[in-house]
């Protein structure tokens, strides 16, 4: 009885200390992780609970035991809610369970309140199930117990459901959390039995296991490798037992011998046993590997992980890193490097390294022999094989092999594809100092095929990317050259425009002088002139006006063709504009005795450059009058054409345009033959400019004409008007 009590007490204390250490360590290690933080809370609550338990059974008075009971439940009330919280957080369903969490926390705090205030929760600490002090409870306690069981089952339920849909690493993590719960709560729940059923809390010892084994696994092995921990625990426990057994035999065997001699033998025996401990341990590891833990991983799981990576990763560096993580996780090797073969240099370059003292991008001489061996066989080569087998004679002497030994590489795993050998994985020795077994070879052989294919793709992709960059650079260079040439052209173009504008200014000034001098002459001296002198004066004046017009139109054409025509749209009443234009032409129309029929529809304002549209319209009107025959009719109308456009129609009964010449009408300097004879003043530029001006305003233009019957011009203009163009010059 005493021994059982002692064991119970000690394991409880150890659980307390271990839980505290684990809780502290988990939070300390990564206090940014919510998962770690919550697991730390679970552990610390467990520590408080164990401390309470230890102090209760070791209390000397009942009031003391009652006090420690209250401390115990300070921890015990929160263990399930923290575990639940940890579970939903780990499963990523915390947000979905937010309301549940809040409610559960509130309930937990209510129980905490009762724990410290109500006798209906903890009633007393009478002796139960062989303990001097234990616990008697009130009716509130049963609510708490139900709540406890509910939360634990609920957590298990979520875990079981969550694990089903998970795969890979996450699945094993969740499995471990599940196992933790089973061991911990499975053991812990028996502590309810004395006060409720009067049964001895046998499971308490398991609680100790849960903390010691599982928490260690969680912190050190990132919730991944419970098998390794189990194996290590069993191996060490067996080793210790063997040594202890040795002591026992020694003591028994030497029981009757002389004291001093006995002590001497014992001393030597202890030394020998301690020295043997490592060997014994290695032996057990060997046995454990052979019979129980022939592989520490499931090849299928590892392959699933590798396939996941290769499916989702495309960047070479990422693939290296992730392959390293998976293989290291499975084999627990001391180093992994990935060396890629470079055909040109006949060397393997270290492209990835984790754990070896090699610098990245290092190339070793003598790689060709390894490459040949890989190409010939495509099998994993162990460094120990190279040391022993004759077929590797050449490799043995190479610098690269000497380096491989130096860095502690044990396996060379070729990455072969259909195209040949891509490179190899250099795998270091196992951390456990074991040899690589059949399963390891099998895993590496199967995995290396997939890895090689993925790497080949990825390297090709990288090469393409690099090529793209080269291409991009070339395009950039060409673009820069074109830009430069373009700038040069622009400069030239600007010079041309400047020349035209200067030239036109230079031409226009003397033309103006001529104009004003002729005007002066006409006004002041005309009366003194003879008739023929007056006629000549008029002719000079006409020629001068023609020259002015020609210069103006050349200037306009240069501006239009440059594309530097400024378009500055303002709202324009097109009908009103035409009406005003017509007024200006009326004197000439009257002179030719034309019958003008105007018809203007009321239309919305259109945003147009007033100068440009005026220039265009006046050209058509002036033509319609100029080329009309005396006494004939002229129709001018503006109306809505369709939903989007208005239409201007200008119809005359003039000389018309010969059908064969109609297609040339809008060409620069083109003049219809009959127009040239009937009117010598035209430049052949007016219609070209007018057409461009209409087009600039977003409009369209066409005509119908019959020689000696008349011509009709149609001009459409969109209601939305013309675009603004930030040019430099307007039309003159």
């Amino acid at each position, binding site marked *: 009885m005493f021994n059982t009590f002692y064991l119970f007490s000690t394991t409880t204390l150890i659980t307390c200390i271990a839980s505290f250490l684990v809780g502290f360590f988990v939070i300390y290690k990564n206090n940014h992780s919510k998962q770690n933080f919550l697991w730390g809370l679970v552990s610390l609550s467990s520590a408080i609970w164990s401390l309470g338990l230890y102090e209760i059974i070791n209390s000397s008075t009942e009031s003391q035991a009652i006090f420690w009971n209250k401390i115990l439940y300070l921890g015990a009330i929160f263990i399930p809610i923290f575990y639940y919280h940890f579970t939903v957080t780990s499963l990523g369903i915390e947000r979905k369970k937010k309301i549940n969490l809040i409610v559960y926390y509130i309930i937990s705090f209510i129980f905490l309140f009762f724990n410290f205030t109500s006798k209906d929760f903890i009633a007393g600490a009478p002796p139960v199930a062989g303990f001097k002090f234990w616990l008697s409870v009130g009716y509130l306690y049963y609510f708490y117990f139900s709540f406890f069981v509910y939360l634990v089952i609920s957590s298990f339920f979520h875990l079981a459901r969550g694990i089903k849909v998970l795969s890979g690493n996450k699945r094993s993590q969740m499995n471990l959390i599940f196992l933790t719960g089973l061991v911990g709560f499975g053991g812990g729940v028996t502590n309810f039995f004395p006060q409720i059923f009067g049964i001895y809390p046998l499971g308490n010892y398991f609680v100790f296991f849960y903390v010691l084994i599982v928490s260690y696994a969680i912190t050190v092995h990132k919730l991944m490798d419970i098998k390794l921990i189990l194996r290590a625990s069993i191996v060490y426990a067996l080793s210790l037992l063997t040594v202890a057994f040795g002591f026992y035999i020694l003591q028994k065997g030497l029981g009757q011998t002389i004291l001093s001699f006995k002590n001497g033998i014992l001393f030597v025996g202890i030394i020998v046993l301690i020295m043997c401990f490592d060997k014994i341990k290695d032996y057990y590891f060997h046995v454990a590997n052979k019979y129980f833990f022939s592989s520490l991983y499931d090849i299928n799981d590892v392959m699933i992980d590798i396939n996941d990576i290769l499916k989702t990763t495309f960047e070479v560096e990422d693939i290296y890193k992730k392959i390293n993580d998976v293989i290291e996780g499975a084999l627990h090797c001391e180093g992994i490097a990935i060396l890629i073969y470079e055909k040109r240099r006949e060397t393997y370059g270290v492209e990835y390294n984790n754990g070896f003292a090699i610098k990245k991008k290092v190339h070793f001489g003598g790689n060709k022999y390894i490459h040949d061996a890989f190409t010939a066989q495509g099998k994993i080569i162990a460094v120990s094989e190279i040391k022993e087998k004759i077929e590797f004679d050449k490799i043995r002497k190479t610098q690269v092999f000497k380096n491989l030994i130096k860095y502690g590489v044990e396996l060379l795993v070729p990455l072969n594809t259909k195209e040949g050998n891509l490179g190899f994985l250099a795998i270091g020795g196992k951390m456990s100092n074991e040899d690589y077994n059949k399963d390891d070879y099998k895993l590496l052989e199967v995995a290396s095929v997939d890895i090689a294919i993925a790497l080949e793709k990825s390297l090709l992709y990288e090469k393409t990317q690099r090529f793209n960059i080269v291409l991009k650079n070339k395009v950039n260079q060409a673009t820069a050259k074109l830009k430069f040439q373009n700038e040069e052209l622009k400069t030239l173009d600007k010079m041309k425009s400047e020349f035209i*504008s200067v030239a*036109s*200014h230079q031409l*226009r*000034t003397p*033309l*103006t*002088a001529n*104009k*004003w*001098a002729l*005007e*002066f002459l006409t*006004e002041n001296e005309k009366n003194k002139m003879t008739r023929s002198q007056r006629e000549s004066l008029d002719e000079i004046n006409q020629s001068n006006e023609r020259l*002015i017009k020609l*210069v*103006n139109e050349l200037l306009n054409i240069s501006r239009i063709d440059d594309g530097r025509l*400024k378009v*500055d749209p303002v709202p324009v009443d097109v009908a009103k504009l035409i009406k005003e234009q017509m007024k200006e032409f009326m004197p000439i129309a009257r002179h030719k005795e034309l019958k003008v029929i105007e018809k203007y529809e009321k239309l919305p304002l259109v945003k147009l450059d007033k100068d440009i549209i005026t220039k265009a319209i006046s050209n058509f009107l002036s033509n319609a009058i100029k080329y009309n025959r005396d006494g004939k009719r002229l129709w001018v109308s503006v109306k809505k054409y369709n939903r989007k456009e208005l239409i201007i129609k200008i119809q005359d009964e003039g000389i018309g345009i010969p059908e064969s010449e109609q297609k040339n009408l809008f060409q620069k300097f083109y003049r219809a033959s009959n127009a040239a004879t009937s009117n010598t003043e035209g430049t052949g530029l007016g219609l070209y400019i007018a057409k461009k001006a209409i087009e600039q305003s977003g409009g369209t233009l066409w005509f119908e004409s019959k020689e000696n019957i008349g011509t009709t011009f149609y001009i459409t203009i969109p209601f939305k008007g013309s675009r603004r163009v930030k*040019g*430099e*010059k*307007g039309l*003159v």
Partner: protein
Amino acid sequence: MTKKVEKKSSEKFKICIVEDDKMLGKYLLASFQKEEGIDVQLAQNGNDGIELIKEMKPDLVLLDVMMPIKNGFEVLEEVRQEKSLDKAKIIMLSNLSSKSDMDQAKKLKAYDFWTKVDMNTTEIVEKVKKILSK
């Protein structure tokens, strides 16, 4: 055509012409000199123009844009800085008919911008008279 323009007082209207082209200046001057109600003077470059304007304090200035040494816009800018010349209506004369020049004229508060080649002197005189009698 020779309809008299008169200020409300018996004073004559004062007009400055700043034009570097000798021929253009000559004909412009001549056509204004025929007008009785107008006192007109000519300057043949920008610097002289500024001096003349400051001295004469004209009602209206016909100011050529393209001139050596000081162009029309520079003259306009300087004149506009002189408070006593606020009332002078300044009309820019040019043969370049560039939109940007017109915009600049507007910005510098010129009264108008005329293209010489499009007009004869009679038209200019008539237009000026119309502006003055406003």
